[in-house]
């Protein structure tokens, strides 16, 4: 076998192998990853087709002052401003919001059940300048979860985030993108923003049974409504 032919074969094999595994996430430490909640404890996925906005609350004005000269909010203000509920009527989402941090290996935590949406606590508060990041499951082991229809969202769709103090912040969808998890655009999703923006994240693409994970992430981008 000539050197040139062997190089070609290796190259073609590398191309095939690399592309085939290009979207897969490595298996989680300790064997095949398991869902955060056991199937028996999972509540049915929450779908309320005609999601209605709560009566209480009022529109939150977008911060007008310059945060560079604004004092840091106190703990009480933070507690009042944190998101507790998210509504996306176009895809039948009306879900409670829980807090998310990062796992020991630095990845974003995910909600422990399929019905809740999680807020990355180091991302922006509702209506606050910067990216607000919410993540929810596309499905669990049994069936659809809260963000099952996230991929269906279209530009212009309305999203309402309800704060702990009852105030509501409206967002409008700009677009939905899908990315391989191993090429996740961290800077695009978590990067600085001049105004209040929202990112909804779930899984997408094909399911890798060897790892127990989907290969892609679906991200919906939204901007605070004027």
């Amino acid at each position, binding site marked *: 076998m000539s050197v*040139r*032919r062997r*190089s070609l*074969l290796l*190259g*073609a094999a*590398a*191309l*095939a192998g*690399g*592309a*085939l595994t*290009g979207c897969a*996430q490595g298996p989680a430490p300790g064997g095949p990853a398991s*869902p955060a909640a056991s199937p028996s404890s999972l509540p049915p996925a929450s779908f309320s087709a005609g999601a209605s906005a709560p009566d209480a609350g009022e529109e939150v004005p977008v911060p007008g002052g*310059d945060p*560079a000269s604004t004092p840091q909010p106190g703990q009480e203000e933070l507690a009042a401003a944190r998101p507790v509920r998210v509504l996306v009527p176009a895809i039948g989402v009306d879900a409670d919001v829980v807090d998310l941090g*990062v796992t020991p290996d*630095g*990845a974003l935590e*995910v909600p422990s059940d399929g019905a809740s949406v999680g807020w*990355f606590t180091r991302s922006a508060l509702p209506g*606050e*300048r*910067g*990216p607000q*990041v919410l*993540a929810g*499951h*596309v*499905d669990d082991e*049994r*069936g659809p979860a809260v963000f099952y229809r996230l991929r269906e969202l279209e*530009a212009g769709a309305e999203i309402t985030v309800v704060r702990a103090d009852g105030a509501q912040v409206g967002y409008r969808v*700009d*677009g939905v*993108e899908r*990315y*391989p998890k*191993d*090429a*996740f*655009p*961290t*800077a695009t*999703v*978590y*990067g600085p*923003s*001049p*105004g209040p923006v929202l990112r909804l994240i779930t*899984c*997408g*693409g094909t399911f890798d*049974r060897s790892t*127990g*994970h*989907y290969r892609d*992430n679906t991200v919906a981008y939204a901007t*605070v409504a004027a």
Partner: protein
Amino acid sequence: MTTSLAAPATATRWAARPSLVALVALALALAGVLTAPGAWAAAAPGQAWVRAAHAVPGLEGMAFTVTGGPDDDTVTLVDDAEYGSVSDYEALAPGDYTASVAPAGEAEQSAVLVTSFTVGQSSATTLAAIGTTDQPRLATLSDDLTPPAAGTANVRVLPAAAAAPTVTVEAQDGPTITDVAVFGQATAYAPVPAGRWALDLSGGRKDSKAVVDVEAGNVYTLVVVDGEDGALEVLPVTDAAGTSQPGAGQGGAGGPAATAPGAAAPVGGVQTGGGGTATATDGVPPTGVALSVGALVLGALLVRRRVGA
């Protein structure tokens, strides 16, 4: 980002080898591009953020208006901007616009400054009236939305003080944010560790001091304006806010943050699925699979040709 950079580098290195290898390398690079759209999707879907800055010393209050875009909108960014002020951002639909600056209270037709500009999705732009009253001009500044390195902010300076033809801004016991920046020209962004910084400003008729708070993950512009009696003042404005970092911003006056903050954002993708709705035909097959099959067929054909020759 690393994925996108790695593929072309590989191709370049291999290009010096025999031509068939180069062909495969090219295919590899192509596959890398096509299977990693995220790495190339620099801009998120989103609105274009635009704001106005009045940085012409001695010029009266001005109104900043933009017209155009896909819906031919007219948006007043600010109706009476005084010298040394920066407006809030407005979210505009990406597209082509015309900006005009007119004395406050007068019609748009009496604009003294006009410029055309184009804004893309999830971009940030400052329309800055800069220069002198004799020669004012309207600059379209691109505001950087690159995530700062962990524990730092990105900071630039817009020198707009008549008292200082050039200005140097140094953080005490910290970085030099800009060295001899020219009046009316925005500097590049410099990384500054998070914390409260005492700044020394020189280049004017007298040296001046200022204090600014810098949060990790954020992006700032320091507008240097005329203060009283020939002194220089700093107007800090936030260009963009990112994800916050625990432990950042706790430094004392004149020093950087005491604790080393962690990474600005979580690593990688998010495991938000259990597979309960996945089927053998679920989802669109990755582009990579088709590419790989194509490459294998191509490889096999080329090998057959060489063997047969």
